[in-house]
C-alpha cells in the first residue's frame, strides 16, 4: 500500500509541476489542482497508514489508541481541501477575466513573439 500511495503522490506531483510550468492558464490551473491533490494525499499519509482503522473512538472511554487512525491529519486534509477549493475557484475567475481582457490564454497576457 505504501508503494501505491507513494507512486500516486509522485505521479500527481510530477504531472502537476509539469503543467504548472506550461504557458497556458488552463494548464496552470489544472496543474495546481493536481498538485493540491498530491499534497492532500501527502498530508493524509503523514498520520501513518493504518488500513481499516477508524479515526474516532467509541463513546465509552479509552481503548487502545494504537488501533485507531490518527484523526488530526484527516482534519488537516479537510481544511486544506476547502481552502484549495476556494482559492482555485478564485483563480478560475481571475483566469477568465485575464482571458477576456487580453484575448489570449497565455499566462503573460500576450502571445510570445515568434
Amino acid at each position: 500500500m505504501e508503494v501505491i500511495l507513494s507512486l500516486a503522490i509522485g505521479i500527481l506531483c510530477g504531472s502537476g509541476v509539469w503543467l504548472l510550468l506550461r504557458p497556458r492558464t488552463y494548464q496552470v490551473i489544472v496543474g495546481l489542482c493536481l498538485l493540491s491533490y498530491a499534497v492532500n494525499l501527502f498530508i493524509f499519509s503523514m498520520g501513518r497508514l493504518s488500513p481499516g482503522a477508524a479515526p474516532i473512538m467509541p463513546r465509552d472511554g479509552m481503548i487502545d489508541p494504537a488501533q485507531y487512525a490518527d484523526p488530526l491529519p484527516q482534519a488537516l486534509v479537510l481544511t486544506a481541501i476547502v481552502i484549495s477549493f476556494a482559492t482555485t475557484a478564485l483563480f478560475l475567475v481571475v483566469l477568465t477575466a485575464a482571458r477576456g481582457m487580453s484575448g489570449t490564454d497565455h499566462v503573460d497576457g500576450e502571445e510570445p513573439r515568434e
Partner: protein
Amino acid sequence: MSTLPNHLIMAPILLPFLTGAIMLLYDDRQRQAKIGLGIVSVILQIAVAVELVSVAKEGLPVVYRLGDWLAPFGITLVLDRLSAMMLLLSSVLGLASLVYAAAAWHRQGQNYHSLFQFLLMGLHGAFLTGDLFNLFVFFEVLLAASYGLLLHGSGQTRVKAGLHYIAVNLTASLFFLIGASLVYGVTGTLNMADIARVAAVLPGGDRPLFYAAIAFLSLAFLVKAGSWPLCFWLPAAYMAGAAPVGAMFSIMTKVGVYVILRLAMLVIGAGGDAEEGIAAEIIMACGFVTIAFGMAGVLASQLLARMASFLVLVSSGTVLTVIGFALEVESAAMLTGALYYLAISTLALAALFLLSEPMNRDDGGFAAMLALTAETYGFEEEETREVSPARAMRGATTLLALSFLISLLVLAGMPPFAGFIGKVTMLGAAFEVEGFSPPVIWCFVGLLILSGFAAMIGLGRIGIQTFWGTDDPPQQVPVLEVAPILFLIFMLILLSIGAEPVVRYMAETVTVLELPDYYIDATLPTNDLDEPNVEAPQAPPSPLMKRGAP
C-alpha cells in the same frame, strides 16, 4: 500575571472579522456607513494593540488557549513583545491606508472594506497564532483578501499581475502544507512551542526529515518575504495594486520575515548543531542577494510605485540578512537594530506607496517619461480622476514634498530621522560581532550603505522630476489623501524622537527571542501530563522555568 482581561488577545482577530462580516450584509452603495464602521474598527484595533503592547512589555509571553484546551492539543494564541509590536504596526498602517482609500479608491470596485478588514484579520492572526496549521489558515485568509484587494479597480495590468501573484502564492501555500504535515509526521505536534521542545531532543534518524520539513516551510515563507530568487513576482504585483493596497502590502512581506524570525529562533535556534549554521548561511546569502537585487531595481525604476516595490525588497532583504547573522552567532544588538529598521522602513514604504499616486497624477514633464515607461513595461495609463476643488487642500504639494523628503531620508538612512538610528545600530553591532570573517561583515556593511545610497539617488531623481522639474500650477490633492500620509510621517518623526524607549523595547524583544524557553514554558503546561508524544522523550526541564516571572 496582569490585570488584562485575557480575552483581549482575541480582539485583534475578532474585531476585523466581525466588522468585515457585518459589512457584507449591507449593499456596497452604503459606502459612507462602511467607511465609518471600518475606521472605528481600525481605531479600536490600534487601541487594543497599544494595550497589548503595554501588557507584553511587562514580562513573559501571555498565552490564550482557545476553548481552554491544554497547549499541545488545543490551539493557542501567544502574545509576546514581537507579536504585539507587529500588531501595532499593521493596525497603524491599516488606519492610514483605509483613510486614504476613502478619498476615492473604495468606489472603484466591490466590497473593498470587507476585504480590507479580512486582510487585517489574517495579518493579526498570523502574528498571534502559536500553532503551525493555524498559521497556514491565517496566511490563506490574508492571501485570499490580498488577491481581492490587488484586483480592486480591475484593468488589464492588475489582472495580469494578479494572475502571477495568485499562481506563485498558491504554489507557496502548497509548500507550506507539505512542510507543516512533514513537521507533524516527524514531531507529532503542530504547536510551535511543542515543536521546538520536541525538536531539541529529536532522535538522530528523524533529524534529516525534520530539516527537510523546515526547508519546505522556509521556502514558503521566503516567497512571502520576497527573498531572491523567489521575488520576481513582487514588484509587478505591488506596483499594480491601488496606492492604499500597495501601502498595506508593504507589511505583507514582513509577515514572511516575522514567521522566519519566530520559527528560526524557536526551532532552528533550539537545535544548536551544524544544520543551524547551514540554515543561517542560506538565509544570510538570500538576504545579501535580495538587497543587491532590490538596489539594482531601485536604480533602474522610473516610476515611484515600482521603486517602492524594490525598496520593499531591500528592506526585507536587510532584515533577513540580520536574522541570518543572529542565527549564526549571538548578535542581539544587530537584531535590535533590524527590528527597529523593520518598523520604520515599513511605515516609510507605506508612505511612499501612498505618495506614488498624488505625485504621478500630475501631467507635467514627468508624464512623457511615464508614458515611455508604461510603453516599455506594457502598462496602460490610469485615467486621471478629477478632484473637486471643495475637497482639495491648499498647499498640499508642499506637504507632499516634505513628506516625500522625510520618507527618502528614512529609507536612505540619513540623519536626523529614524532610518539613521536603525542603520547605525545595525552597523555598529556588526563590527562587534565575533565569529565571522571580515569579508562577510564588510559585505554586509557595504550593501547596507550602498542600498541607502541607491535609495537616495533613485528617490531623489523622482523627487526632483516631480516637484522641481515642472512649471505647472500645483495640483489638486484632496485632504483625505494628504492626511494619512502626514499621519505616517508623524509616526516616523515620533519614532525618531522617541527612539530610545522603542529601541529598548526591541532590545528586550530580542533578549526574549534568543531564549526560546520563555516562549515554550509559557505555552506548554508546566505540570507533567501524560506524555502525548511516544516518539520523543520528555525535554529536560528548562532552567528558566524556576526563575519565573520578573
